[in-house]
Structure formats: structure tokens, C-alpha cells
């Protein structure tokens, strides 16, 4: 009978308790100091027209820095998805730009992030938006996210939706969200450890949202640390889509089914977000829509009106100032929910005309 060798290590890496303590101190220092040092080294471009570069929409660590910067430079931050960000327009044609232009000041900051449905937006603010606590907030409510069970994340079948790192990982349960428990736990860790957020930032901002190992596969002969230039990609002035209206684009009228507000997951997330902001001392103003009702069939429009009324009723009941404008002119929409430049200009005018923003 062969005798299995006495257990030994097949390598020389044996450390004493003191050496392990040293490694722990080193690791803790790296974890705490690197993100802070990085913030000093990496210049953050900002200004009245600044919006998060589209390709960095998943870089929540950067967004939290942008948010912190925004509250020092502006009175009011505007939160929302691509409607706030400006999907069909240039940075100087967004809602924040027109509000600033009409007021003649730089009061409003664009903190919109593409694809942040209410559940994701609630997560973004809860975990990465502490810097905006106590500030004036315009919160855009995009009813598009309640236009179907799929948008509402209530499909039973699994599908990939945007910003899974921001949604609640376990409770409340999201039926279509089937990530493995380990990945979910990893997301929770990333939310709570600035270092992990920083690490994702480096990969998103400098390696095209891929990991360094995968990047080397595409650039096999390059120095893997070369992309780290400490210069963030500037917000692009180019249009993401041609700025033409939805009808020119060939979109036909749609019979969106809309979900019932009472059972809507996205609406519950929105309510949770409003409550969170209020709890953090924010002065909250809600902008509902303006959704492109021209694109809806008559039956769908009726359902939408009911939903919109429900939203307004809740805001009224909670005494939250809001503005729920009528739909903008049809030609001022690029699709179901995104205004074109003229639409933003008109919306800004209407918004200021209500006097509600000044009252705040």
C-alpha cells in the first residue's frame, strides 16, 4: 500500500501571524486609500452641460462623484433615465440646459443615467447617491416603465434588463431576475465597498467595460496598463440617434397594455425612491412624463390616462409638488418617451411657467 505523502505545501507560501497581519493592513490600506487617491488623480470634467458619457452609464462609482460635484456647483439636480439624460439631443439641448438658459443661471444639473428604470434609479440613489442628500431634486417619472409587464419586470420568464446591479437582489423579489446567488451577493458587496466600485470604474472607463484579462485578448501585444491615462472620456457632443420625430422614424401607433399601478413593481420602486429622498431631507419635485400619447392607440391612451391619474393622486395625497404636463406636440418626440430638442425647450418653458420650481 502506498503511503500518501505527509501533508505539506507544494509551494513556499507560508506566512506567520504577524506577516498575515501585515498583509491585512496592506489590503485594508489598498481598499481604503486607492479609491480616494484615484479621485484626486483623475480629473472630473463638469460644467452646466455635463452629462455622464453614455458608455459610462454603468459606472456608478463615477456617477456618485459626478453627483457630489453637481450638488456643489448647482442648486438642483435632475434625476431620471434617458429622458433626463437626453437620448435624441446634444448636451446643450437637454431639459437641464433649457431650464438653465431660461433662468439665466446654472441652477440645474443633469444627473440622468440611461436605462435607469425606477427600480434601478431607486438603487442608484440609495447606494450611490448619498451626496445629494438634503438637496433640491427634480425627479422624472417615466411612465414607459409601466407600459407592459416586461417593462415592469413582472414577466415570469427570465430576460436581461438594464442595471441589474442596482435592483434589489433578494427582496422584493423580481420574477424575471434569475442571477445566481453568488453574483447577487457580489453586487451587494460592490455597492458597499467603494474599492469594488472603483475597480468596476477602471474597467468601464478605460477598458471599454470589459475586464483587464479580456482586454488583453483583444490587445495581446499591448501593455495591459497602458489604457489607464487618468483622463476620462469626455461627454460626446454627437447625437446618438438622428433627431427626427417618431413618425418620420417609421414608428407606428402602439397598443401598449399598461400595468395596474397598484401591482406595479416599478411604481412601488418609484414610491420607495420618493420616500427615501424625503427621508434624506431632499426637497422633491416630480415631473411626470411627458409621455408621447400620440403614439398610443385610443384604447391604450385611455389606460394610460388612468395610470397617469393614479400617479397624480398619490403625489397629491403625499403633498409632493409635481407637474404632469399634457403631451408635447407629436413632432417633438423621437419615440414613445423621449422629446427632441424643441420638446425639451417647450417643456422647460412650461415647467418654469408653473412657478412650482421657484416656489421650492
Amino acid at each position, binding site marked *: 500500500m502506498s503511503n*500518501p505523502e505527509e501533508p505539506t505545501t507544494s509551494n513556499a507560501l507560508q*506566512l506567520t501571524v504577524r*506577516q498575515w497581519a501585515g498583509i491585512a493592513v496592506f489590503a485594508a490600506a*489598498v*481598499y481604503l486609500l486607492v479609491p480616494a487617491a484615484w479621485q484626486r488623480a483623475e480629473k472630473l470634467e463638469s460644467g452646466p452641460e455635463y452629462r455622464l458619457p453614455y458608455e459610462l452609464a454603468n459606472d456608478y462609482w463615477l456617477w456618485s462623484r459626478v453627483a457630489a460635484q453637481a450638488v456643489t456647483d448647482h442648486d438642483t439636480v435632475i434625476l431620471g433615465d434617458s429622458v433626463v439624460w437626453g437620448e435624441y439631443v446634444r448636451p446643450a439641448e437637454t431639459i437641464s440646459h433649457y431650464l438653465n438658459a431660461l433662468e439665466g443661471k446654472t441652477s440645474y444639473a443633469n444627473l440622468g443615467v440611461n436605462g435607469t428604470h425606477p427600480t434601478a434609479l431607486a438603487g442608484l440613489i440609495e447606494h450611490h447617491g448619498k451626496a445629494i442628500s438634503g438637496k433640491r431634486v427634480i425627479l422624472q417619472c417615466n411612465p414607459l416603465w409601466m407600459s407592459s409587464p416586461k417593462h415592469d419586470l413582472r414577466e415570469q420568464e427570465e430576460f436581461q434588463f438594464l442595471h441589474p446591479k442596482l435592483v434589489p437582489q433578494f427582496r422584493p423579489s423580481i420574477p424575471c431576475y434569475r442571477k445566481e446567488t*453568488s453574483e447577487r*451577493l457580489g453586487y451587494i458587496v460592490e455597492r458597499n465597498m467603494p474599492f469594488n466600485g472603483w475597480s468596476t470604474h477602471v474597467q468601464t472607463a478605460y477598458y471599454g467595460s470589459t475586464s483587464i484579462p479580456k482586454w*488583453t*485578448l483583444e490587445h495581446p501585444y499591448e501593455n495591459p496598463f497602458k489604457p489607464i491615462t487618468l483622463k476620462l472620456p469626455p461627454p460626446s457632443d454627437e447625437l446618438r440617434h438622428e433627431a427626427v420625430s417618431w413618425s418620420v422614424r417609421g414608428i407606428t401607433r402602439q397598443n401598449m397594455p399598461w400595468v395596474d399601478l397598484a401591482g406595479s413593481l416599478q411604481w412601488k420602486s418609484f414610491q420607495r425612491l420618493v420616500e427615501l429622498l424625503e427621508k434624506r431631507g431632499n426637497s422633491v419635485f416630480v415631473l411626470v412624463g411627458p409621455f408621447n400619447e400620440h403614439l398610443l392607440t385610443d384604447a391604450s391612451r385611455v389606460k394610460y390616462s388612468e395610470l397617469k391619474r393614479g400617479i397624480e393622486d398619490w403625489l397629491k395625497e403625499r403633498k409632493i409638488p409635481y407637474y404632469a404636463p399634457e403631451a408635447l406636440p407629436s413632432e417633438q418626440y423621437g419615440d414613445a418617451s423621449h422629446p427632441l430638442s424643441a420638446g425639451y425647450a417647450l417643456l422647460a418653458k412650461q415647467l418654469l411657467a408653473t412657478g412650482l420650481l421657484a416656489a421650492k
Partner: protein
Amino acid sequence: MLFHTWVFAVFFLIVFPVYLLVKNNNRWMNLWLMIASYVFYGWWNPSYLLLLFGTSAIDYLMVVFMEKSESKRTKKLWLIISLVSNFGFLAFFKYSHFITDNINWIFTHLHWGVQLPDPVAYPNWAISLFGGGQGWLFTAVVLPIGISFHTFQSMSYTIDAYYGNIQTERSFVRFLTFVSFFPQLVAGPIERASNLLPQLQGRPVITRDDVVNGMALFLVGFFKKVALADYLALYVDKVYGAPGDHQSGALLLATIAFAWQIYFDFSGYTDMARGLAQIMGFRLMLNFNNPYVATGLGDFWGRWHISLSTWFKDYVYFPLGGNRKGKSRTYFNMFVTMLISGIWHGAAWTFVIWGLLHAIGRIGTRELESAAWYRERVPRFVKQVLVFSFVCLAWIFFRAPTVTDAWTILTRMFTTGWGDPQFPVLMGVLIVVVWLYEELFANGPRTRSWLEGDVVRVGMAAAMVLWLAVVAQPSTQSFIYFQF
């Protein structure tokens, strides 16, 4: 549950403190470890637990019956039942598709017009005899993770008990813990009852050295898996996924990368397993010992998957007669052992060929390795290159999904131009650094003592932590050997 995932971190953070509380009471300790191990194994698919429990229970009972047997014949009968049940489960879950496909292929070529059904039909037919509906329990034969590891571990107990090498384990719970001990359950080391059972019978003592050395082993294993194996897999998967699209350079480098990938993957798992066990006060056997510095194929098999190599040596090679019955019989025994080792790895012709290649290589080089001129005159480095080249050649069959793919890789490797392999320089640097480290470590006491210096050790640990934190990505990639 994978060691390098957050789920396992949570699992261990629950299991370990409770373990510390109960470890001084042997009964509670074993019960707790058994529960933890079953949760660990059932995490993938709870229905696998039935199989794990079933095979363990049969082996436990057979040894109890053996002990009570008065005649050698009855004792042998219990051993045969144990072996048949273990091999039966293995044959059904692991090899039934392979066997069925090959028999059907023969039938088709003989134009017999009959085909064997999908293996899932057999258990369903048995269930239907008892009134159960078709497909009530089985819809497909799915390979349970690590089946080859835990059945071999369990079998070693019955065989050793039969030969009187170990005492009968009285506690059923302790025996279940022995078979299912979570650190090494799904990919080894395949522990012998004589090593692990006595540890489970006592009260483990955890020293400060156990904890720090266990942590070091875990860190090294974690690094091997997440930073090295999963990184190399990116290139290997790309090239082996479409061998016809790549030229000689890429195919050669992907094969070398795979040799290191599988080593980092498997030895990384083993290091983590041994580290975890050591933190809990248990010693698991060494499973890898710098295999790519081997200077002969015999040397290689003494360093690679040691727990399996010694298993085959003890339970196949020696019972066949080992080297005691003349030269030709020795070669025959070696051939059979290596062939079975190949088949153990997987139910595919690629694994059979891999086993055959090693069998031929081992037989062909045995005399050479013992010849004085080879041992004394051929430089060590040349021997290492020869062994590594041969091992890589065999890895082609191990990694390729089909024999056709393996053949494509082999032929293209020698018939196409070098091309631009697009092999990341960083990968090459990492491989060379690890090889150099292992070579210096294994080469002699002087270089080894230099590597064991404080600065080198602490620097390496810090570098690994930094690399894992910044460069490597969180991984949920499974281990290659889980499929066996």
C-alpha cells in the same frame, strides 16, 4: 457551491463558527460536518444527495456485513456487492450514454435495424413496474458532480476493510461525513479511510500554524483559479472553440496554455480544499507537487493528481501484480492502469486516447528513464521539455471536444504556418514566472531557501491580493474536474 464565490464565503462563515463550538464533541462535530457537506453538495442539485447517501449507505452496510461474516466467501460477496453497486452507479450516470451511442453506432453500421433506447428509459421502466408513470423521476441522465471522486473514496474504504487494512467504522454519521467531507467532496483529493477517518474519530486540534498555513493554501489556490486558470481559459476556449480557424502558432500556444490552465484549475481547487480542511484542523493529502518540473513520465504521475495515481496504484496496479511478475506483465499492468485512468476521466473516446497515449508513453520511457546515460547525461531542462511536450500532446485529446477536433488541431499544428497567434504577452509572462518559481522551488535547497525568505513570501502574498483585487474578475466559472 464553488470555493471562489460569495455563496461559499457565506456558507463557510456560518459553518466554521458552529464547527468551532461543536468540535470537542465528536458526535456533534460529525453531524454538523455531515449536514454542512450535504448542503454544500445539494446546492447544485438536491436530488444528487440521494445518490451520495445511497452509495455511502451501501458501502457502510457492506463493511458491517463483512465484519460479521464468518467465511471468506461471504466476506467477498459483500465486497463484490459494494463494488458492483459503485461501478453500477458510475456506469449508469457517467458511461451509459457513451456505451449506448457506441453500440448503436455498431448496430447502424451492421444494418441490424435495432437501436438501444436512451439510458433514461431503464430507470423509468423499473419505476413503471411499480406503477410510476414514465418520466416520473428521470427525464434525462445527468452526470452528478464529482461522482467519480466520492465513489472512489467510498470504495477505497470497502476494499481496505476487506483486506483488513482498516477497522470497521461504527458510526454511520461519521462514515457519511468521511464520504461527503465538503472541502474535498467534489474534486478530491480522494482521501483514504486510513487518513481521514481517524481524524474524524478524534477531536481536531487547530493550531495557529494550521490557520495561517491553511489561509496561505487557500490564497494560493484562489489565485491559481481566479487569476490564472480562468484567464488562460479565455484564450484556450477561443482557439479550441474553432480550431479550423487557427494556425499552428495559436494551436500550439493554446495547448500549452491549456496545460497550465488545467494545472492551475485543478491544483487551485486542491489547494483551497486542503487549506479549508487545515483551517478546521484536518490534514488532506498532497495532490500536486509541481508536475511540470517532472523529468520523466513516471515522475510526472508521481506529481500530478497524486491521490488518484496512488488509488490506481493500490487498487488496480498492485492487485494486477504490479512489477512482481516479470517485465511483460509489468507493462501490461501499467497499460491497463493508465487506460482505466483515462476512462475514469470521462466517457468519450478522447479520454480513452488520452489514457492510451500516457500508457504508451509510460511503457516506452520506463526503460529510458532508468538508463544511467539518460539520468546522468541528458540535461534536466531537456528532460523537462520532453516530458512537458508529451504531456501537452496528450492534453490535446483531453481538451478537444471530439476526436475529429483533436485530429484537426494536431494536423493543423504541423501543416499550417505559424500565423499571428494573438497570444497575450501577459499570459506568457505569467506562465513563465510560475514555471520559473516552481523550477527554482524544486531545483534545490539554495534556491528554495531564497524563495522561502520573508521578503519573497510576503511580497508574493501582497502581489496576489493586489492582483485579485484589481486585475482579476470575480469568477463563477466552475472547475474543470467537477465534470469527472
